[in-house]
């Protein structure tokens, strides 16, 4: 990138009120630093503590999704992803893009689609039911309790939306885009 292009990129990020945009490895120290940054920016820009807490919560759930579920690019590497927090005229948006294995897509669709069609009361009821389900929380997509997506749905002010896009030349992987509007 030329310096002028970088300057346009920076100006664009400012005009679109990008609080945070990160693309790269999601190691524990990186996630900790990103979390601190998001907190600070929200303390400065969120209209009240309740909104700040909701945006922060959506950010944490998405960042930890990447850490737990995105396949690393090579055997000893960290998972990778892109996380963006922006502020619009009326709402904040938290958007996450990361690779997922094709064999996990069915499960992801099933869960997010179920949550997307629920009313807030249904989300709360499903959240309670998951909480009381004695199956222990584990780290795998196939065994997880689904509290993560339900938490995201509770924080959001509109149904969470997503896309799953095939990756050219990577038959085992797809790109998962997830957005929560708060």
């Amino acid at each position, binding site marked *: 990138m030329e310096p002028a292009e970088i300057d346009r990129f920076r100006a664009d990020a400012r005009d679109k009120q990008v609080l945070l945009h990160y693309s790269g490895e999601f190691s*524990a120290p990186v996630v900790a630093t990103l*979390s601190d940054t998001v907190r600070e920016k929200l303390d400065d820009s969120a209209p009240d*503590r309740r909104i700040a*807490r909701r945006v*922060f919560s959506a950010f944490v759930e998405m960042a*930890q999704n990447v850490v737990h579920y995105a396949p690393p690019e090579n055997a000893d590497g960290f998972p990778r992803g892109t996380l963006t927090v922006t502020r619009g005229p009326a709402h904040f948006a938290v958007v996450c893009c990361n690779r997922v294995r094709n064999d996990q897509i069915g499960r992801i669709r099933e869960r997010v689609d179920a949550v997307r069609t629920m009313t807030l009361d249904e989300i709360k009821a499903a959240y*309670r039911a998951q909480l009381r389900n004695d199956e222990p929380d584990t780290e795998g997509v196939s065994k997880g309790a689904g*509290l993560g997506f339900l938490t995201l749905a509770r924080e959001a002010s509109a149904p969470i939306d997503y896309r799953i896009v095939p990756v050219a030349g990577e038959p085992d992987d797809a790109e998962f885009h997830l957005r929560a509007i708060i």
Partner: protein
Amino acid sequence: MTAIHIPATKETPEVLVDPTTMSFRLSGESYPENAIAFYAPVRNHLETLLSQPSANDGVEAHFSLRYFNSSSTKLIRALIGMLHRRAAEGVRVIAHWYHDPDDDMMAEFGEDLKDEFDALDFRMIEAEGV
């Protein structure tokens, strides 16, 4: 047992387990990347406290959390479950659940715990800037 103090970090709460006052306290933030690893020793410390002979005279617990993530949720609820089992055996257990008046989610979570674990003397406490 000796008193246990685990200091808070940005992502994990402060933990205090004090056998002299028979009290347990969890306060701050809880969004560790590996919540199971963080809460395993906390459970053990609480179990030890609850098995002290003086636990029969009553136990006090304080939960003062600003924020917790989804993977901490079940583990925090499990701590309340441990207190509840002792209360169901006839021990007086007072659990204080502090929440910011603006934090409806934290309040609802506490109300659900209060309904579910009804052997506890469960007290909801509004506290500014928890």
